[in-house]
């Protein structure tokens, strides 16, 4: 057993949790006018934690502790990196947006951090109740964040919808967990795996389906996806970004662990694969098809992110080391690609008070940086080289084809080319339309940094994916040990 100190291992979680509290306290104590430093404070905290986590990923001790309840392997750390990066980018891009909110804005960052904390717990959870607690921490924070524009009926409506559906899906997830507990007597993944592995009973299958449905809800897998577009549309744009990127990734982290340990058993394999293939294919197709007629950028990105979930599922279907590596790789670049797009959407939403695609008209002229970043991000999502999305898809589909599934790869690639259609429609509006009468909206400061940074990362990873691929490989490998 590697000798380690539990506090050093849990340092990121602890810091994030305390910072969340501190921000709340500051919000309560410091007078309204001088709360501008909250964004930098959060950002620097996140940068610090991120750096530490990065160090931890490569050099820190790895262990499973609390009898397998909590895992500190490279897989978990990889996802923590992802959440922290996403949170950081959201924070950086949300500065002006949040500034315009009313006096509640200090809670925004606090809630953001608590959601991040929830995700980090999910990534490390080796046990279903821990996972559930993390999940709920994240979800409840999101309920509030989604409805954060208290005076905006749409935002409140989104919050309510998310609450109802999220609650119901949690209940179903929990019911599944309870069945599993009933069948195995444990909520720890390793124990479950050893006890459940043998044969497939209707009860165990019901439990699995419930579990899958609960997690599928979070990753907006068709047919559990219906909430996503509405919530994404109603939520404040930075929240949408965080929701689309991080919460989905967190659910994937859990799904991978659960799937690999429990569902990937011999008895389950054919049935489970069939099920997952059907779901993944319909997710890819439906997400991309419905995205085509969208006129609202957030809704468009919502459907696009549904489709992206379908691509990610492909890696899980492969179930191999390469497949998981593909998922990890793709999840990370997905952060940057989506973040770029959402940053631009946030910027436009903040300046023009509109989420309509037609209001992006002439963005090329009015804000060249934003237009270029948006284009690069969308094309990365579509998987056009030399952007990172291509490398990601390549890893994913190579893995699944290696397992012999050719048709799913064809469907995936064809659908991703179909997706180019609606991504390019946005590009067309930005570059072709003149945008008469719309204001010039140059980007500055942290927002500009976010945009350019995400674009550069997208480009650099696309051109030279090796470092990230190695990290993803290490993380995936730690899962298979």
């Amino acid at each position, binding site marked *: 057993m590697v000798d380690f100190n539990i506090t050093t291992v849990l340092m990121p979680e602890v810091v994030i949790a305390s910072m969340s509290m501190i921000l709340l306290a500051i919000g309560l104590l410091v007078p309204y006018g001088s709360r501008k430093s909250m964004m930098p404070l959060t950002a620097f905290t996140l940068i610090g934690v991120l750096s530490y986590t990065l160090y931890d990923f490569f050099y820190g001790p790895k262990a499973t502790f609390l009898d397998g309840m909590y895992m500190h392997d490279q897989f978990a750390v990889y996802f923590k990196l992802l959440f922290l990066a996403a949170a950081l980018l959201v924070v950086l891009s949300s500065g002006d947006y949040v500034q315009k909110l009313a006096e509640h804005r200090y809670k925004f960052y606090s809630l953001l951090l608590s959601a991040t904390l929830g995700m980090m717990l999910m990534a490390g959870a080796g046990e279903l*109740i821990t996972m*559930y*607690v993390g999940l*709920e921490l994240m979800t*409840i924070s999101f*309920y*509030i964040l989604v*409805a954060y524009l*208290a*005076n*905006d*009926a*749409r935002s*409140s*409506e*989104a*919050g*309510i*919808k998310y*609450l*109802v559906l999220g*609650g*119901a899906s*949690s*209940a*179903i997830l*929990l*019911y599944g*967990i*309870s*069945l599993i*507990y*009933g*069948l195995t*007597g*444990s*909520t720890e993944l390793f124990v479950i795996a050893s006890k459940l592995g043998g044969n497939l*009973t*209707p*009860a*165990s299958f019901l439990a699995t389906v419930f579990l899958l449905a609960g997690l599928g809800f979070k990753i907006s897998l068709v047919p559990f996806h219906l909430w996503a*577009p*509405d*919530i994404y*549309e*109603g939520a404040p744009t930075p929240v949408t970004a965080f929701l689309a990127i991080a919460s989905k990734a967190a659910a994937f982290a859990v799904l991978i662990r659960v799937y690999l340990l429990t569902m990937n058993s011999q008895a389950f394999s054919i049935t489970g694969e069939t099920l997952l293939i059907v779901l993944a294919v319909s997710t890819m197709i439906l997400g991309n098809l419905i995205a085509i007629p969208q006129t609202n950028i957030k*809704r468009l990105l919502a459907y696009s992110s549904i489709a992206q979930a379908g691509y990610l599922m492909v890696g899980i279907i492969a179930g191999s080391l390469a497949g998981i590596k593909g998922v990890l790789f793709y999840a990370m670049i997905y952060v940057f690609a989506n973040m770029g797009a959402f940053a631009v959407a946030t910027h436009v939403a903040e300046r023009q008070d509109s989420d309509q695609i037609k209001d992006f008209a002439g963005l090329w002229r009015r804000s060249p940086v934003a237009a270029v970043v948006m284009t690069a991000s969308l094309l990365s999502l579509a998987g056009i080289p030399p952007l990172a999305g291509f490398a990601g898809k390549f890893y994913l589909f190579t893995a699944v084809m290696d397992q012999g599934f050719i048709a799913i790869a064809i469907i995936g690639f064809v659908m991703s080319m179909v997706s180019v259609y609606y991504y390019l429609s946005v590009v067309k509006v930005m570059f072709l339309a003149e945008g008469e009468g719309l204001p010039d909206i140059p980007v500055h400061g942290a927002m500009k940094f976010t945009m350019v940074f995400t674009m550069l990362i997208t480009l650099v990873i696309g051109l030279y994916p090796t470092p990230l691929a190695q990290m993803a490989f290490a993380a995936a490998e730690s899962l298979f040990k």
Partner: protein
Amino acid sequence: MSLLNNFSNLSVGLTSYLLVGAMLFCLGLYGVFAKKNMIAILMSIELMLNAVNINFIAFNRFIWNQKVDIHYVLTGHVAALFIIIVAACEVAVGLALIISVYRNRKSTNVDEFNWLKW
């Protein structure tokens, strides 16, 4: 199949508890599907969560009540506790949201919350 059959062979208890849990869950589900008032829906969700609690406790009590050293392993009970706490948080947030949406829409009728669609 075997495990479920085992459940029914037990003389008293588990099957009944599980049935109650399942019924409660379905009731909650029905509420979520059919109720129009947001608060009622929130309560229905609570029903579903409590159904899970019953399951947990029943399982722990009837099947998995082993002892390690001198302690009982109370995973199910602990889980139920957690769920209760989380449910409480959820209800708190939920009620706050209902108030917020009521301010905006002057209604708690879930059918009217359809501005976001397509």
